[in-house]
Structure formats: structure tokens, C-alpha cells
């Protein structure tokens, strides 16, 4: 199994008046190469879950095994290595570095993977081209629109060629055409073997995934395989 979590809880301000159970006993397994959508309304705990799955945050209780190894047994160095090599993040808030230009932002994770400069730049430009933003390579993030920044963030995640992509509302700031394009990229990455964990509040987007996990108030209420629209349409036409 790629990811296994058991009875995972994330409780903020535990025992206090304003206690928040962002995750409240979650069990979930995700295998190599899966395409999972985690859906839920705002505040249901989706981002909290991704932060824990991405080793950015630690659960209050419960167990998380990545590649069969408990994450809490990992050293800080190993966790950084995992974030660098294994996981490509697309954050909900883009999280680009304002002092670097677009291609430098995209190339930064590869710096931590010790990819040589020329190759880094090449791969960054390729990734930017994939999301149709290569013409802004020399701009600063602050000079871009929200949707453009979103695409740069996506380019940064895919350029690393990590075996797992974690995307928190990657289409949130995009028009439907670009959104569809981004989903197309995620699906083709998945077709090449990348595991994709897609977080969204939008059922229409979740419908593009192969499996849908529903979160309500920090609990999983349903976990079902999904027949993608195209397959269903094909089926209905027969």
C-alpha cells in the first residue's frame, strides 16, 4: 500500500472551549497509481488531511504509514527527503515565492533534488508549457492573475516527476476550459503511473477521478470507486 491511515484524528485546541475536530477518526488506504478525489464542503477537513498525508503536519492521534513505514518513525531529514522526492504539492493558496520569478519557482523543488541547473530550467520550461504559461517564465508571481499563479503552482508540482501528486483545489481559480486542461494533465500523469490525490469541493471535478472519498465534519461518509463520465456515456450509448 502507498498510503494507509488508521483512526487518524487532528484536534485543534483539544479540551478547550473552542476545540475543533478537523479529522475525527479516519481510516483510508490508497494504493500506488490510484486517482482519488477527496470531496467535502468547506471546513470538512480536506486540507487538514492533505497536510498530514503530505508530511507537512502531524496527526494528534492515529497512525499513518507511507510505503508501509510509520511516518512518525521518520527523522526530519527523511521527511524532507520524502517531500522532495515522493510528493508533488499543489497548494490551495498557490504558495509561490514572491522573490523568485516563475521558472525559478517551478525549478526550486528540483534544486532540493540536486538536479543540475540546465536540466532544472529545461524541465521547468516544459512543465510551464504543459499548463500554457511558458510565456510568463520570467515574470514575478505577483505580476500574474490568480489563475495564472495556479497554473505555475501546478507546473511546479508536475516538474518534479514525483510518484505522488497531491492537489488541493487545483482548479479553484481556473475557468472551466483551463480547469479541464489541468484535469487532463493530472489524468495523463495518472495514466503513466503517478498516484493522484485530488481535493475538491466540486462534485463535477471529483467525477473525473477513479475513486471518490467523501468527508463530512472530519469523518469519511463514503468511499466508492467512480465510473468516469466518459465510460458511463459510452456505456449508455450501447
Amino acid at each position, binding site marked *: 500500500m502507498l498510503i494507509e491511515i488508521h483512526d487518524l484524528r487532528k484536534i485543534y485546541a483539544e479540551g478547550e472551549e473552542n476545540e475543533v475536530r478537523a479529522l475525527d477518526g479516519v481510516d483510508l488506504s490508497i494504493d500506488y497509481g490510484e486517482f482519488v478525489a477527496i470531496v467535502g464542503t468547506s471546513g470538512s477537513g480536506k486540507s487538514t488531511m492533505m*497536510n498530514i498525508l503530505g508530511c507537512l503536519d502531524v496527526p494528534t492521534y492515529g497512525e499513518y504509514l507511507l510505503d508501509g513505514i510509520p511516518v512518525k518513525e521518520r527523522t526530519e531529514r527523511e521527511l524532507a527527503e520524502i517531500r522532495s522526492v515522493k510528493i508533488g504539492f499543489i497548494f490551495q493558496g498557490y504558495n509561490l515565492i514572491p522573490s523568485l520569478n516563475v521558472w525559478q519557482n517551478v525549478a*526550486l523543488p528540483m534544486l*532540493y533534488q540536486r538536479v543540475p541547473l540546465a536540466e532544472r530550467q529545461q524541465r521547468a520550461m516544459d512543465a510551464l508549457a504543459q499548463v500554457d504559461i511558458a510565456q510568463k517564465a520570467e515574470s514575478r508571481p505577483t505580476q500574474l492573475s490568480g489563475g495564472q499563479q495556479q497554473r505555475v503552482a501546478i507546473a511546479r508540482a508536475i516538474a518534479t516527476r514525483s510518484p505522488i501528486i497531491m492537489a488541493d483545489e487545483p482548479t479553484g481559480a481556473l475557468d472551466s476550459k483551463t480547469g479541464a486542461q489541468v484535469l487532463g494533465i493530472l489524468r495523463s500523469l495518472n495514466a503513466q503511473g503517478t498516484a493522484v490525490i485530488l481535493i475538491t469541493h466540486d462534485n463535477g471535478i471529483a467525477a473525473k477521478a477513479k475513486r471518490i472519498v467523501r468527508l463530512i465534519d472530519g469523518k469519511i461518509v463514503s468511499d466508492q470507486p467512480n465510473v468516469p463520465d466518459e465510460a458511463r456515456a459510452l456505456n449508455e450509448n450501447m
Partner: protein
Amino acid sequence: MRGRQLEELKMALESITDKKARSFLTMLGILIGVGAVLILVTVVTGMNADMEAYYEKLGVNKVYVTVTQYDRTNTLDITDDLMGYVASDMSNIAVGVTPDIEQSGTLRYGGNTNDSAVIYFGNEQWADCNNYTLEDGRDLSELDMDNRSMVCVIGAYVAESLFGYIDPIGETITYNGYPLTVVGVYYAKDGTAEESMDDAIVVPYTLNRSILSTAIITDFTIKVETSDDMEEAMSRIESWLSENLDSNTSEYTVENGNDEMNASEDETTSLSLILGGVACISLLVGGIGIMNIMLVTVTERAREIGIKKAIGAQRRVIVTQFLVEAAVLSGLGGLIGIAIGYGGSLLIGKAMYDLILVPDTMYVVASAIFSIVIGIAFGLYPAVKASGLQPVDALRAD
């Protein structure tokens, strides 16, 4: 690996140039500290050089003997015995011995007068003992002593003030009315200025009876070979004096001529220590300034740190980033400080000593290294603090 370090340096430079005013203010402490250190060190060096030159001219390793006789009726002149003792028994450590009486008075030649010159009563070794070298004519001789010759050897300023362009050798000047034939001229050694060591003449000490109306010589200078022999020379002279002088009617003092020099050397040493301390404090304050700004920077850039950690930066990378930034800041401050130190040293050297003084290369290199070290030392805590931020907490910061 080298490429990455270069990129880290470039990023540090960019974040420094992004906030020029703040970076400059941060550097100010180090800048002033380094500039002040270099200027102060140069000034002390100038003082030392000045002082050394003075003692060089004066002559080192001299023992001054002063005898006081109370019983004027039954006095015993020790001059011959003392000179004999030094010449025979102390020849292994002493260069020479001379009576050394200082007088003032008026020198005249033609229409020119000189009231400032010091008139010394000495023997043929007086010049050696007091670091004068003959330029022209001849020095005093033993014969002059025996014959009580009315002759003198004059310093460069006396020659200039009385004779101008005339050759003084063979001319006769007067000292308080006593005619003295000039037999020699000493080289200038103190700038040929009024009241300098060049404003002096020496006459045979045996003229004491006729000119000074005294029967006995009370002051002597003994020149010793090396400073290591000073203690021994002094103790031998002291024991000779105690044996040869009647303690009921006379007293003596034996002084180490190097004492004054050593005292002023000690003075400049403690001055440099105090200045060094002040400099260290100012550099410390500068370092604290850097730490303060770096801590603010860490808070400001928490989000950037969070992003970097989230996409795989090791702690080391974050630590290096902030350390490089701190080191570049303080190193740059140090460089500007060095420039100021150079400028200030030149200005002050010109104004105070009329010398071209520049900071010693050793101090320049040391302060460059030291300022970088300060940046690293005081940047360490903020850097470690930055690298320890939890990615998720750092990401949430705004």
C-alpha cells in the same frame, strides 16, 4: 555543489538589495565598529612610530648617574675613577661613559644669537653615548679634555641658526661671553628645529671650572651595549658608587634611561587594549543588530520558509540561506567599514602626524574575517529558528 552555493549567495544578495535602506541600517553597527577599529589602530600605530622614532634619536640603553655632594669643602671628584672603572671593568657591557652636564645660555656668532640651545659638558665619548654622528670637522678628543681646550662641536640647528651658509669649522662663537672654537658639526637627527636635539653643542667637561665655576662633576651618562645588560650595568655602577662615595656626605641616583620608553610603551599598549575593548563592544552591538533584523526577517519570511520546507528543502538549506544572508550583510558592512577605516586613517595620519598612514593589512584581513564571523555567529540563532519552523505552521503564517 558549487553551483548551488553560488545560487544561495545570489538569493541572499537579492534579498539584501530588495531592502536597501534596512540592509544598510543593519550593517551600520558593523560598519562603524570596523571603521573605528581600523582608525584607532592606525592612530595608535602612528603614536608608537612617533615615540619609537623619538627614542631612536635620543638613544636607548643609557644609564644616568647623578651624584649629590653635601660637603662642599672636602669634596672628592669621582669623574676619573668612574670613567676608569667603566672603561676597564665594564668594557664587556658598556659602550662608553661621559660626564653629561646640561646648561642653557646664549650663543653668539657675528650678529646672530641662539638662546634656545642646550650646552652639554661631555668628553670624547659624549657623541657615542648620546647618538650624535659627526658630519664635518672633528669630534672632541682626550687632548681637549687634558688641555681644557676652548672648543665645541655644534648640532645642525646651531650651525644653521648661527652660520647660515658659512662653514662653521674654525670659526669662534661665544657662550655667555666665553669664546669657543667650532671644531665639528653633527649630522641633523631631529629635523634641524629649534629646541630639538639638533639645537645643542658639546664642550669639554674640563671647562667646568672656568665656565661653570664648579670643582666637581655630578652627572654622567653610561651607554650600555644591549637592553639585556641594563640591570647588570646598573647594579655594578651602584655597588661601585656605594664603595667609592662617602655615604655621610653624598648621595647618588642611578636611573634606567629605558624606563621612560618602557612606560610610554606600556601606556600605548594599555591604550590599544582599551580601544580594542571598545571596538569589540561596538562589533558586539553590531552583531546584535544583525541578529535582531534576521529575527524580524525570519518572521516576515515564515511563509517562504514554509513553502521551501514543504517542497523538500532540508533544514540545512534554510539554515544556510539565513547564515549566508547574515554573513553577506555583516561582511558587506565590514567592507564598507574597511573603506572608511582607510579614508579615516589617511585623513588623521595626515592631520596628526603628517604621515601617510594606512591600516595594517593584518588588521584589514582580520576585521574582514571577524565581521563575517560575527554575521555567522549572530545569524545562527535566527537561522536555526527559521529552519525549525513546522512547514504547516509556516505556511499558515501571513
